[in-house]
């Protein structure tokens, strides 16, 4: 991990982040770095804190200690280690720098596909309706939905909705894209079209941190894989190393064995 963070400062720098829901420790001193242009995948059994970690990165969840920096700026709290929460206005501005795609798409149901993308562009980025529409159409084209610009979410399939979700996130030109199990709610035959979009974004150099259960995709698309267990980072490395059957990490081996048993 150190070889990744020394030469160039990481775009995303998570250090010793801990969080508890009451007595349950969901994150235990988690550290991880993502460099510009990297695709880092987080895997692990459910309940291992993957999604919570992702939600801390754009401060949809607060954390109890540690620090999360994007491009050198502390995310949720004011600088100088005061643990003083940023103002809502500040938080909104920080969040606009990270894109997030959700497991359940979370499109705004009253807005069309284009409208979903345009909302942030007009209200947050201050673009005119016409400019925003052009950007929205560009990104809908990129995800293969140019012809669905004026469709409402209810008129789209799950895979199409998720592609709109991706377009909505990337249209804001975020520094980093967070993908939270984005294919888990999809019918198996729709997974491919969504992953194809993610792959093409990776090829364009989009920095991504993603949580997924798609091991084959993680192996092919990631620069590095982070294995989380019990709220902590248990192993980090290139896909080949992490997904190797002969890994010495006991927990990882159990996870992979269970995973293979249930998926193949």
């Amino acid at each position, binding site marked *: 991990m150190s070889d990744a963070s020394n030469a160039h400062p990481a775009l995303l720098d998570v250090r010793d982040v801990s969080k508890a829901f009451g007595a349950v420790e969901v994150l235990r001193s988690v550290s991880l770095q993502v460099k510009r242009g990297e695709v880092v995948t987080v895997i692990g059994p459910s309940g291992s804190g993957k999604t919570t970690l992702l939600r801390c990165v*754009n401060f*949809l969840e607060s954390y109890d200690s540690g620090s999360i920096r994007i491009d050198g700026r502390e995310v949720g709290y004011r600088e100088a280690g005061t643990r003083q929460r940023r103002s*809502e*206005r500040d938080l*909104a*501005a*920080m*969040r*606009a*720098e*990270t*894109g*997030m795609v*959700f497991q*359940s798409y*979370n*499109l*705004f*149901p*009253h807005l069309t596909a284009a409208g979903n993308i345009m*909302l*942030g562009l007009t*209200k*947050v980025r201050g673009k005119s309706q016409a400019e925003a529409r052009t950007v929205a159409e560009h990104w809908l084209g990129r995800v293969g939905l140019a012809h669905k610009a004026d469709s*409402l979410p*209810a008129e789209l399939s799950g895979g199409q909705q998720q592609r709109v979700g991706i377009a*909505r*996130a990337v249209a*804001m030109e975020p520094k980093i894209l967070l993908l939270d199990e984005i294919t888990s709610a999809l019918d198996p035959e729709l997974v491919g079209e969504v992953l194809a979009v993610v792959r093409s974004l990776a090829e364009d150099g989009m920095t991504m941190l993603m949580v997924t259960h798609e091991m084959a995709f993680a192996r092919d698309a990631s620069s590095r894989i982070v294995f989380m267990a019990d709220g902590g980072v248990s192993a980090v490395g290139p896909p080949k190393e992490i997904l190797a059957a002969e890994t010495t990490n006991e927990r990882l081996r159990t996870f992979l064995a269970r995973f293979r048993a249930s998926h193949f």
Partner: protein
Amino acid sequence: MGYALNFNLIWRHFDKLWGGLLLSLELAVISITIGVVIGLVLAVWYVSAGRVVRAVIAGYVEFIRNVPLILLVYLVFYGLPTVVDLAYSAPTSFVLTLSVYSGAYLVEVFRSGLEAVPRGQLDAGKAIGLTPWQRLLHVRLPAMLRITLPALSNTFISLFKDTSIASVISVPELTFGAQWINFNTFRIVEVYLVTTAMYLVTGYIMLFGLRLVERRSRAAR
């Protein structure tokens, strides 16, 4: 029984009913509009407020919902001016009462709607960098409206019918017009048949209009 229906006297005084219906609609529209403002403001305040504000708003809602409207009408029209130095006409007094009354019911409708908006949509609003105010305006309220439309239709129609209570303080709305005709012609069956039909038709027209809005928004779900 040798009662023969005779509507002639009703038609002769029909202007009392027609004028009454228009006044009923006017009372309803003004009161509901004010009630919607009260309801929206308090509901939005409620879902983001602390315990004290919540308790005060809940107290208002509970008070209104547990007191008969007719009592509130008497209290505001006869009671209030004797305590404070106020003078208002009967229609104004009734609009004031029905506004506060409808506000309490609408707080409940809007509050439950706001709380029913899926959290994921609010997260999505946060994730693209909307401020709390923008999230409310562009994400939560539109989503809340489509959730509450069916309940809202029922409440509106119910409040329209409640305007009949204005007759007890001699506001010349539809029910008062019916009473006037009854007292002056003794055609009790005819006048209340016609009046019932007028409430019914107006209610159906309102329902039809609101259902149209509902259907359009459901298509958009």
